[in-house]
């Protein structure tokens, strides 16, 4: 097996770029980024609104600006880039990984690499995934597809709009449609709370007088060729529509913002363990997956709220990939595997990243990312326990599922762990 690259990064969005740059900074010289779109930057390119970069760059940027900042760092680094190229498969062997790539320019070919970073991002859940009754007519789009038409192609997708789901892209697109002259009649959310960031609820809905109907859902879409209207109903505690609460909305467009799914078809086909809670691979503290030398970061790992955290996470993955390639890991992975501790999502917690920690691993500090299952409006304590022993804890005045949380764990605390599992939970 000819080792062509030290590292191949699949995906040229913020996650892939962050990982590639950090791997370069940590000593790798033969790196390739594979991007399926015609340019780097990923979904940031169509997110022309601002609000990016406050945490990482300390200033407020638009999506394309943030993408530009990250892409600029590639300059002069000697990192190979191929765009308009799909990775069709990953095959892992004893000495590394063989990727099948396809593009119009380079055709169908195989490349070998020692390490691999998965940074393919995520996709949107569709109408099928939530099964809305009614006809299958034009005018029903996911918010991200609408965003592409409006922001990238320059076309409007409707005049009278209802948004189903209150994920961030839905909220952003509600505002965007108003700015382009459409009327947005409501944003409808089946849960009793929004799935989006608090700041988006204020800046995208409140500021534009758009009603947010919580505990409501669309129960019927009407129309012969294009949407002619929808029926919205209130739902009960078990999310079933309540009879007699029907309201009809005269709309020609339904935008769906009903969740994001990490894009892990390649990952699954490569035999990498997937966590059903995140939809992404199970990873260790250094973002390495269950397969040696394959790392994952960004939305392919778990859906993030802010791109800033994607960048930070991808830098960890890029550094770890470099250490792996250069053989600078402290211990042999197999030995580490034996010591691995499972991090379990306890009461109130939806998932954790990483799912496994090797106490003798590389990091001095391990950051556990997670989301809570429900909103907490009063102060709560986050507690990470090894049996009865508290390993880390932190107090939060407010928490919501729409916002990612994290907890720092010091290395010396990890070394004291006696059990095999750590449980993270929300406590009073």
């Amino acid at each position, binding site marked *: 097996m000819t080792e062509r690259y030290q590292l191949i990064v699949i995906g040229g969005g913020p996650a892939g770029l962050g990982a590639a740059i950090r791997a370069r900074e940590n000593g790798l010289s033969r790196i390739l980024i594979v991007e399926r779109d015609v340019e780097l930057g990923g979904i940031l390119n169509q997110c022309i609104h601002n609000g990016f970069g406050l945490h990482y760059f300390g200033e407020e940027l638009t999506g394309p600006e943030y993408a530009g900042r990250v892409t600029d760092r590639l300059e002069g680094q000697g990192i190979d880039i191929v765009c308009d190229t799909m990775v069709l498969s990953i095959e892992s062997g004893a000495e590394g990984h063989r990727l099948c790539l396809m593009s*119009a320019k380079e055709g169908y070919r195989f490349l070998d690499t020692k390490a691999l970073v998965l940074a393919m991002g995520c996709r949107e859940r569709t109408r099928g995934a939530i099964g809305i009754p009614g006809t299958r007519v034009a005018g029903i789009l996911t918010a991200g597809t609408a965003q592409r038409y409006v922001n990238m192609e320059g076309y409007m997708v409707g005049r009278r709009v209802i948004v189903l789901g209150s994920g961030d892209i839905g909220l952003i697109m509600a505002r965007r449609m108003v700015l382009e002259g459409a009327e947005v009649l409501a944003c409808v959310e089946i849960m009793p709370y929004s799935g989006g960031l608090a700041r988006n609820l204020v800046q995208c809905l409140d500021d534009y007088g758009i009603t947010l109907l919580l505990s409501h859902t669309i129960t019927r879409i009407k129309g012969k060729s294009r949407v002619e209207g929808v029926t919205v109903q209130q739902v009960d505690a078990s999310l079933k529509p309540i009879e007699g609460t029907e309201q009809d909305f005269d709309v020609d467009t339904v935008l769906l913002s009903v969740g994001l799914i990490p894009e892990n078809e390649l990952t699954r086909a490569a035999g990498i363990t997937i966590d059903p809670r995140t939809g992404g691979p199970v990873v260790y503290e250094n973002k390495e997956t269950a397969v040696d030398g394959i790392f994952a970061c960004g939305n392919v790992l778990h859906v993030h709220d802010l791109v800033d955290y994607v960048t930070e996470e991808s830098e960890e993955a890029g550094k770890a990939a470099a250490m792996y390639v250069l053989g600078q890991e402290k211990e042999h992975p197999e030995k580490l595997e034996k010591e691995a501790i499972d991090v379990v999502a306890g009461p109130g917690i939806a998932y954790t990243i990483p799912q496994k920690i090797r106490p003798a691993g590389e990091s001095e500090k391990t950051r556990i990312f997670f989301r809570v299952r429900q909103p907490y409006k009063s102060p709560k304590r986050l507690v990470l326990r090894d049996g009865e022993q508290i390993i880390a804890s932190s107090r939060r005045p407010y928490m919501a599922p729409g916002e990612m949380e994290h907890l720092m764990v010091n290395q010396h605390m990890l070394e004291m762990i006696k059990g095999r599992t750590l449980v993270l939970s929300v406590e009073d």
Partner: protein
Amino acid sequence: MYDVAIIGAGVVGRALAYTLSSFELSVALIEKENEVAMGASRANTAIIHAGFDPTPESMMGQLSVEGMRRCYQLCEELDVEHRKTGSLVVAFEESQKSVLEILYRQGVENGCQGLELIDGQETRRREPKLSEGIQAALWAPEAGVINPWEFTLAMAEVAVRNGVVFMPDREVTGLAWQGDHYQVTFSLPEVVQARFVVNAAGVNSDLIHQMVATSAFEIVPTRGEYYLLDRTVGPLVHSVIFYSPTTQGKGVTISPTIHDNFIIGPNSEIIEDRSDTGVTRTGMDHIGEMAIQMLPSLDLRANIRNYAGVRANSRRGDFYIRMSAEHFLDLAAIKSPGLTCAPSIARLAADLLEEAGLPMRKKSLWKGGRRVIRFKEIPEEERQAFIKDNPLYGRVICRCETITEGEIVAAMKREIPPVSIDGVKRRAGTGMGRCQGGFCGPRVLEILARESNRHPLTVEEDGMGSFILTAETKGGCAHD
């Protein structure tokens, strides 16, 4: 003046057009929608039935096995995606077991081969995920799955190549016998004259019939709803699984598709509006329950699409095929297994037309056959060279199904080019997968507009008026 005007470009009309295209005849195929296969031919269970279901004395019984065999032959000749999977009718209780025996005897009489009655254990040996509650099953090795759109299109393409005139966007409003020909009128100021008229109007076939004859049958529009599950749930089953018919009617089917996804459905609901292909919560819940009874581990969260089709059922419970008036042939009330029977219905129709005086002389020059390049089917070692010669086949447009730009552009250049996003989907397979066109939709729209010299604003998602884009943004579009 045409020799024959066929009303309806579903699978039946298309099969007849294909058959007639090999004779020295001028044929018009009239369709009210903008495309072929816009009715029940596109929203069904996509199965080639083995032929044990209908009673031997029924027309369906007489046409089933011939149709099934001819379907496979046509799939080979026309490069239509299909797979012989076999089917199982599963029984949970004694009363259903006796139904299996009846089906077995009918099948033998209809000419099915290889039928087997097996017990529950053997059923689960063949399909390990099926329920422990299943007591017995009827195995029919000749059943299979098919791409019903491609089947219809393939016959349509060959027909058009051999001179059949396809006339979409024309809803027939009148039929008048003029002594030696019919005058066919539309909502448009246009008239078609034809010596023979064939009614293949599917769910509207009774309305067409009543334009020339007294009412002989009534279509009872029956809606069937479906789930389409992503292949990530699989493999659930390898063959087509039918719930044994009970007094409540035929049960739900679980079937793999030719693309390795899974179809679950249909229910059966009589509806008022013949065009109502909406799905309902009650229908979806019912199908889900029935399917889980057969496959307890089924996870419906893998659903990628719900759809519904309206079947042209009639109270007679059988096809209605006969010369109902002077030079007027009904191919009506074609319900399940209409897709499987389409080729044998076409053969019978040609016989009936000939008996009624239509001169049938074989064409000396008939261009049959059809080949489609599907990137996924190109052997791995040839792919590099193939893309070098055809770079568009190196650009993946539909990521879920790995469909390339080359396949879309090729579809645009066939005898009946697609006019809509779903038209491309039905030809090239884009947008069939888990993202349902979320990623590739905008790119398909761009390619469709480019290749057909249309403005993107005029591109429809599916049928007439199903526009996707409504205007340019304030800043204008990116492509002017």
